[in-house]
C-alpha cells in the first residue's frame, strides 16, 4: 500500500545521538580481542558519538609501537574455534591461525590495527593509556602510538568519561 505524505520525510540526523558519549576499555592484547573495541569505536564515531578508548593491561599491546602491528590469535583456550586444543600447542599453530585471521579481516576491507587507530583518530576518537599499565611495563609515552593523547590514571579516565556509556572488552 502506498501512503502519500504531505510534509517531506527527512531523516533527523542531528537529533539522534546528540550529546551521547561512549567509553571503551580495551584490556585484551590478542588480535581477535583488539578488533571488537576498534570496530565499535569506529561505528560510534560514524554516528557522531564522542568516543574515548582506554587501553589497560594487555590492551597495551594495541598501542605499543613494538607490538601493535603484530598482535596474535591463538586456538588455545578458545573452544569456539572447534579445533582440538592440543593442536593449538604446536609451535607453528599460533602464527598460522594469526595469518589466517588477518587474511579474513583484510578480505572484508577492515584495516590492520595501526591503520584502524589512525582512522579512529581521524574520525575524532580519543585514545588514552593506563598509568598503572605503563608503569608495570616500564613504558613511556614515547613507546606508545603517537596519537595516544596521554597516559592517565583510572580515576582520570572515569572523570573524563562522566556520563558516558561504558564497554569493557
Amino acid at each position, binding site marked *: 500500500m*502506498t*501512503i*502519500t*505524505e*504531505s*510534509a*517531506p*520525510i*527527512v*531523516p533527523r*540526523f*542531528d537529533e539522534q545521538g*546528540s550529546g551521547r558519549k561512549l567509553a571503551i576499555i580495551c584490556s585484551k592484547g590478542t588480535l581477535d580481542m583488539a578488533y571488537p573495541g576498534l*570496530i565499535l569505536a*569506529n*561505528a560510534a564515531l*560514524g*554516528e*557522531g558519538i564522542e568516543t574515548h578508548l582506554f587501553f589497560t593491561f594487555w590492551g597495551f599491546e594495541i598501542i605499543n609501537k613494538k607490538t601493535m602491528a603484530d598482535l596474535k590469535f591463538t586456538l588455545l583456550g578458545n573452544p569456539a574455534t572447534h579445533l582440538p586444543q592440543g593442536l593449538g600447542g604446536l609451535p607453528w599453530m599460533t602464527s598460522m591461525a594469526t595469518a589466517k585471521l588477518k587474511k579474513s579481516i583484510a578480505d*572484508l*576491507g*577492515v*584495516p590492520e590495527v595501526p591503520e*584502524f587507530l589512525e*582512522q579512529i583518530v*581521524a*574520525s*575524532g576518537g580519543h585514545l588514552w593509556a593506563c598509568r598503572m599499565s605503563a608503569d608495570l611495563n616500564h613504558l613511556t609515552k614515547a613507546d606508545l602510538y603517537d596519537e595516544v593523547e596521554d597516559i592517565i590514571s583510572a580515576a582520570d579516565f572515569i572523570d573524563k568519561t562522566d556520563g558516558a556509556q561504558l564497554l569493557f572488552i
Partner: protein
Amino acid sequence: MPVTTLADRQIHVNDEGFLTDPAEWDEELAATLASQIGITLTEAHWNILRFLRQDYASQGQTPTLRRVATVGGVPIKELFALFPQKPAKKMAYIAGLPKPQGCV
C-alpha cells in the same frame, strides 16, 4: 512504502526518508536533499557524491566511509568536515542511496 514530495516531484522513500529507488535521483534533487539536512553542496561534496553514485552502480551497495576514503581517495577527516557528525549516512542520503551496510 511512503511517497514524499521534494523538489516538486514525488519520490519513494523508506520510513527514515532515504530514497528507495536510486533511479529517482538526479543532481537537482541532491541539492534539495542536502538543504533538508542543512548542507550546502560545494564542489568537494559533489566529488564525493559522484563517487558514491558510481561505486553503488558498480558494486551494488553503498560504500562505507572507509571505502570512500581508501577507494574514493577522500581523507576521513574531510568527510567528517563536509558531512558533520554522521558522514556515512548523510552522504548516502544526499546521493539517494541506502544507508551503508558494512561495519567498517
